[in-house]
């Protein structure tokens, strides 16, 4: 069965420190991978997506992610976080059926 796993439910980090949010997926077919950010009481905003090609994907707000097929991972990174990055981050997977399967989310908490 297809699934997306975000092992960390919450990641606390100090401002200006680097962060990595982990995402692993399980699928027997080729997939698309996405990271979305959700600020409190708001919708889902696309940070970045991997469709094919280069495994290092750059997104908005200084975020990037690396697709690793052998480890079935798509971890999200940012070299220096800001207070404003505090939000819920969702990893999602899509395939030829076009529906998205979401992970359970990681709350990034940036402290001053």
């Amino acid at each position: 069965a297809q699934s997306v796993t975000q092992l960390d439910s919450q990641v606390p980090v100090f401002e200006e420190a680097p962060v990595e949010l982990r995402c692993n997926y399980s699928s027997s077919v080729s997939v698309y991978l996405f990271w979305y950010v959700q600020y409190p009481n708001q919708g889902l905003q696309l940070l970045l997506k991997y469709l094919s090609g280069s495994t290092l994907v750059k997104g908005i707000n200084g975020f990037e992610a690396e697709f690793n097929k052998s480890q079935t991972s798509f971890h999200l990174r940012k070299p220096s976080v800001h207070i404003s990055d505090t939000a819920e981050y969702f990893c999602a997977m899509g395939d030829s059926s076009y529906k998205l399967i979401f992970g359970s989310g990681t709350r990034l908490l940036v402290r001053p």
Partner: protein
Amino acid sequence: EPEVTQTPSHQVTQMGQEVILRCVPISNHLYFYWYRQILGQKVEFLVSFYNNEISEKSEIFDDQFSVERPDGSNFTLKIRSTKLEDSAMYFCASSDEGSGYTFGSGTRLTVV
């Protein structure tokens, strides 16, 4: 940048009442979706719609739910007889194909 528009942003309804959530997808997109997010939980796929018919639906999307594209611009989700457990944030999304998803800002449905 084109947006997916959802109305209303918040709807309160009595248990057992019918509710219709409305969405205006991006005009040149062909695939339409509804997802829901129960408070504090992950985003779950409900249904996908293409070429004026449902292409896939989840186990959540039972006989109480229906979708419709009544004209060339709107895409609606109807819940016939709401239950307390239907309280959630409902997101509409559209895509040109599986890799170009755009989500709306959501409708928070509260069933009392």
